């Protein structure tokens, strides 16, 4: 094996690193995650396994037979027909055609559809269109077919929404007012999640995906948890994936609690327990990629969070591994060499249930 390893930075830039540099980055990445979340580092054996994956000379790498995991997606089928903003390649396909192509030509384990804005709030005015498309397509799909979107609490703040904007209130020192604005917005969001979920359930929806929960902070995550709990209670059988937005929940509110647990600052191994308690069936771990560090550093860091989350989880854990998360470089077209290394490492070392 050559001492020089061709790899990349978190922004996708290709570079040669020595074996010792890669090992040092792996050690530093796992140490960073362990220190922040107060969880164990990867063992020496696991770090060496990750090094071997990073050092494989092949362009693409893969797991061994029997180690495969489930691949879910967050609007992946939209990438066929949407534009650059959604990572789309702009092929003139209908939604149904894209979904069936993904299922049958790509061999996807599950498929999904969502509104092009990919947030729950804008779905409300066009809910009948979404229900119609979902129902028609579900008659033709065979693999599990999800309806997905982001909770996206930010859409409820002025000027886009009805609530005062905490981003304006906090710099003015109006902390209590900012908290109240987030609490009101979270109530609206919870109602919208339940509204859309129930409407989709009425046309036989096979599963909902609440993707990137907590993107606007702890109140966003709280609304998603409450929405999941209500949907599970009121709908009976409705499979739900709840994915997070980051490795820790931003404390934009600071005091938001679910089942008496403060959400701000929660890392994935604690996030999964509240997601379980809410009733979700799959938890999606998200770990941001640091563009200024190598893929080895980022992947070691991701694995450290993921390994502990999988260890404590009672539900399946699927890791978010799109552009800029999970160790995948922040690049419009994520390089195959890195994506497959992330995939293999998470399956073999992270012991995940899916991606």
């Amino acid at each position, binding site marked *: 094996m050559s001492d020089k390893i061709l790899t990349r930075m978190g922004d996708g830039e290709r570079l040669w690193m020595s074996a010792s540099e890669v090992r040092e980055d792996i050690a530093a990445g796992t140490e960073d995650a362990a220190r922040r979340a107060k969880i164990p580092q990867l063992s020496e054996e696991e770090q060496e396994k990750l090094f071997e994956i990073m050092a494989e000379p092949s362009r693409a790498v*893969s*797991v061994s037979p029997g180690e495969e995991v489930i*691949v879910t997606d967050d609007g992946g089928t939209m990438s066929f027909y949407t534009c650059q903003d959604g990572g789309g390649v702009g092929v003139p396909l209908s939604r149904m055609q894209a979904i069936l192509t993904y299922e049958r030509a790509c061999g996807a384990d599950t498929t999904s559809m969502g509104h092009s804005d990919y947030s729950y709030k804008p779905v409300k005015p066009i809910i009948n269109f979404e229900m119609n498309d979902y129902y028609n397509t579900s008659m033709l799909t*065979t693999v599990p077919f999800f309806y997905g979107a982001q909770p996206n609490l930010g859409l409820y703040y002025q000027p886009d929404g009805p609530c005062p904007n905490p981003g304006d209130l906090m710099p003015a020192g109006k902390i209590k007012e900012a908290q109240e604005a987030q609490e009101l917005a979270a109530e609206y969001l919870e109602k919208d999640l339940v509204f859309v979920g129930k409407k989709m359930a009425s046309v036989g*929806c096979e599963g909902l995906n609440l993707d990137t929960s907590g993107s606007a902070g702890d109140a966003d995550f709280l609304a998603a948890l409450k929405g999941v709990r209500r949907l599970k209670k009121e709908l009976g059988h409705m499979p739900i994936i709840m994915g997070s937005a980051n490795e820790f929940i931003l404390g934009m509110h600071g005091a938001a609690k679910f089942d008496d647990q403060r959400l701000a600052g929660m890392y994935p191994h604690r996030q999964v327990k509240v997601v379980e308690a809410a009733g979700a069936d799959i938890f999606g771990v998200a770990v941001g990629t640091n563009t200024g560090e190598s893929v080895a550093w980022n992947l070691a860091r991701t694995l450290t969070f993921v390994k502990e989350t999988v260890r404590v989880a009672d539900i*399946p854990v699927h890791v978010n591994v799109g552009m800029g998360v999970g160790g995948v470089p922040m690049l419009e077209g994520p390089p195959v060499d890195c994506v497959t290394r992330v995939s293999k490492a998470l399956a073999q070392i992270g012991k995940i249930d899916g991606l």
Partner: protein
Amino acid sequence: MGMHMAHIMSSGMGGLRTAGDLVAWMQISRRMKIGDAKEYVARKLGIDVLDLTNEEVMRRTREDLGIGIITSVAGSPKGIRAKIKIAELLEIPINSVTLFKSQLGI
């Protein structure tokens, strides 16, 4: 699409090509972790866990059970017809199947 295809090729189960959809149904329906879901599906199919991702075995198995195959054959089950069989085979509720059956009055 680059990342989706790369993940599917690197570590995915293969969906309709193999038994990926069946294992996924168990994860979302009964919150089964990957190992338990694979064992459950393999037991229901009467095959080894290793063969869940073996196209040569799964093509024949899926055709025999009428649960949908990757290629399009006139008259062969796919979509809701296949999902009715999948729900029965795995003993799980599938909401689209429940609705469809209620519409048919069965």
